[in-house]
């Protein structure tokens, strides 16, 4: 039976197989995105001493499906003076990069769709592209609120991309590779070898920039509910809105996954190697995709936690934070790291 299945798989053209895998993966990712929205509402509900959605299905687990169905069947209203083409294109522009970035993410050793040697560059490019969707949406809506959102987004992204880029440069220096698999290999050892410790300021800078990049609280000025109502997607409804929504949550998962990969050793286990040979529970304690997923979930939780805790920055204050604090911090630490590398300081850089 198994042989038969294997031979069947072997007879399928590899490209078709890859496409099928990708299709399955995207479906799974959409499922995750949907349930992150539920998790957000439940977690924040818990933090705010209320219940959150618990009516649809057992314990509210049907809620994301109900939401998705509702949004799919809603009319997508096109404002009169909107640019018809760009207005429809913008949600795709923010959705596609959020999905495309997953191509290079390794879930376990050599377990990714595209194991390319410039993975980090590709990621940087993809995560930056998402903002075009926001800017185009704001412009194409021909609404004042949306335009303000787009302007804020443009200003914010410039301030943050640079700090984020430098944080990645730090990782690149430490690991000596742009390949995500190699970056994780370079973190092997123990919890202390993961890059969060030697690159701690960069880790923080990356995390903060990541929150800003996904336009999440406290940096959600682009859609600042109480200021510009919904900012860039104020004119969107139905599936257009849903795509922005999906893109936002897909980005949250992506940034969380990246932080886990670059600074917390991805699929590496925090436990000693010997624990992996413990019978029955050993495979849980050893390296593997479950470690990666657990770390990602932790960061997703942090995103939700931030939202429940912090007030919103004003957008000039975000830029001040980006230019005057994060950028110098990353630059200084890159210099420090360079010195550490030159003198091959153990245990990280020897």
């Amino acid at each position, binding site marked *: 039976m198994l042989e038969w299945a294997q031979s069947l798989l072997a007879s399928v053209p590899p490209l078709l197989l890859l496409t099928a895998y990708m299709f399955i993966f995207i479906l799974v990712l959409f499922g995750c995105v949907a349930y992150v929205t539920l998790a957000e509402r439940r977690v924040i509900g818990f933090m705010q001493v209320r219940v959150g959605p618990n009516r649809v299905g057992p314990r509210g687990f049907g809620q994301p499906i109900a939401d998705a169905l509702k949004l799919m069947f809603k009319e997508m209203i096109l404002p009169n003076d909107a640019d018809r083409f760009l207005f429809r294109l913008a949600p795709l522009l923010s959705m596609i990069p959020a999905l495309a970035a997953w191509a290079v993410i390794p879930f376990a050793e050599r377990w990714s769709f595209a194991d390319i040697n410039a993975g980090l560059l590709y990621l940087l490019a993809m995560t930056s592209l998402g903002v075009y969707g926001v800017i185009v949406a704001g412009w194409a809506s021909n609404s004042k609120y949306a335009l303000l959102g787009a302007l804020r987004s443009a200003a914010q992204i410039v301030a943050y991309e640079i700090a984020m880029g430098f944080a990645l440069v730090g990782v690149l220096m430490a690991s000596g590779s742009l390949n995500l698999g190699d970056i994780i290999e370079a973190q092997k050892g123990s919890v202390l070898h993961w890059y969060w410790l030697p690159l701690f300021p960069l880790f923080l800078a990356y995390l903060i920039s990541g929150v800003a990049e996904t336009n999440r609280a406290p940096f959600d000025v682009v859609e600042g509910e109480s200021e510009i109502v919904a900012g860039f997607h104020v004119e969107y409804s139905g599936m257009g809105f849903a795509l922005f929504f999906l893109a936002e949550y897909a980005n949250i998962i992506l940034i969380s996954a990246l932080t886990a990969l670059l600074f917390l050793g991805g699929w590496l286990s925090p436990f000693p190697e010997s624990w992996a040979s413990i019978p029955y529970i050993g495979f849980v304690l050893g390296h593997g995709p479950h470690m990666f997923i657990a770390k990602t979930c932790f960061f997703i939780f942090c995103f939700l936690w931030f939202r429940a805790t912090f*007030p919103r920055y004003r957008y000039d204050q975000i830029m001040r934070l980006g230019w005057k604090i994060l950028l110098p911090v990353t630059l200084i630490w890159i210099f420090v790291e360079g010195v550490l590398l030159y003198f091959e300081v153990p245990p990280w850089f020897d």
Partner: protein
Amino acid sequence: MSELRNYTMNFGPQHPAAHGVLRLVLEMEGEVIQRADPHIGLLHRATEKLAESKPYNQSIGYMDRLDYVSMMSNEHAYVLAIEKLAGIEVPVRAQYIRVMFDEITRILNHLLWIGAHGLDIGAMTIFLYAFREREDLMDCYEAVSGARLHATYYRPGGVYRDLPNEMPKYVESRWHNKNDVKKLNAARTGSFLDFLDDFTQRFPGCVDEYETLLTDNRIWKQRTVDIGVVSPERALQLGFTGPMLRGSGIEWDLRRKQPYETYDELDFKVPIGVNGDCYDRYLVRIEEMRQSNEIIKQCITWLRANPGPVMVDNHKFSPPSRGEMKMGMEELIHHFKLFTEGFCLPEGEVYSAVEHPKGEFGIYLVSDGANKPYRLKIRAPGFAHLASLDEMSRGHMLADVVAIIGTQDIVFGEIDR
């Protein structure tokens, strides 16, 4: 060459931060406000005119609906005006009950304010925390008057009825199982005063909780410090009252300066700010909540020790008891007259003001001797505050306008009347 024009934006009346129906026309250069032009009147319900067509005692309910987050304080100014003109002496117990409910109302108002202000600045959680405590105070309203919001509890001559000896309790239902009900009813086993006492014990801890979230929060400080600064002189010129005036450093509180009811017998402090910015006003209001809590405690102690009437015995103003009304001719006539014609006030005019949670809330009443006012003018604190919005927000950014609207604590019920 084309002329550069400012960006005009319509902020509201449908806007999450418009606190009701504020329509604000903003002229901006980029995100910097050049001019903010508040348009009012979208919630105008002609309260003043309505009051002219109704017997005095039937307008109390309208007062609740002016500033619909500090209901009893509005009523207070109105019944004080009537009592002043009619020369009614209110029983001391009723005065204490009024003071207690004024302070409950102050906490109610400030809780809503801190929630809305936090929400405006993007701190969601504080809103729900504040509403958790509001719920208990709403229950107090409900226990004495039967209504959670529009109580109509203060009457000329006292209050509607004495404090209840037991609190309403939760019962088991689809939503509350036995354990929930037990927890919910834990503080409700005793009298109304026991319930309130329990609340006053808990409440300072709750305020600490809010402060942990906001007071030393760097983002909160960045968003409020030096935003919407009003100098003390300017605050006076603009007709500010209440926390807006005290936030600018002027110690003016009607409870101290023109004591009404029993405020001169109570021990409380009046917090004032230093810089006159949003942050100082925030601190002032937080401290006011703590002080109100202290006042409530003192009232509880007094009310426990001193039972007595809560309404004047003069049946020209207060309805006779049902029993007496059924048995006696005089009482029946009084009852009939009071509920049809109401009562007449002597000719004259009167101004009475109370320290409303938002500032000085005044009622100016002109009587021509009839059973309804010849003219009723409401002095709403929010009106003067909103008028300064342009001055306060000029040169700030769009996000600060939202913070300033929040710090002004405006409610359109009283501004549009």
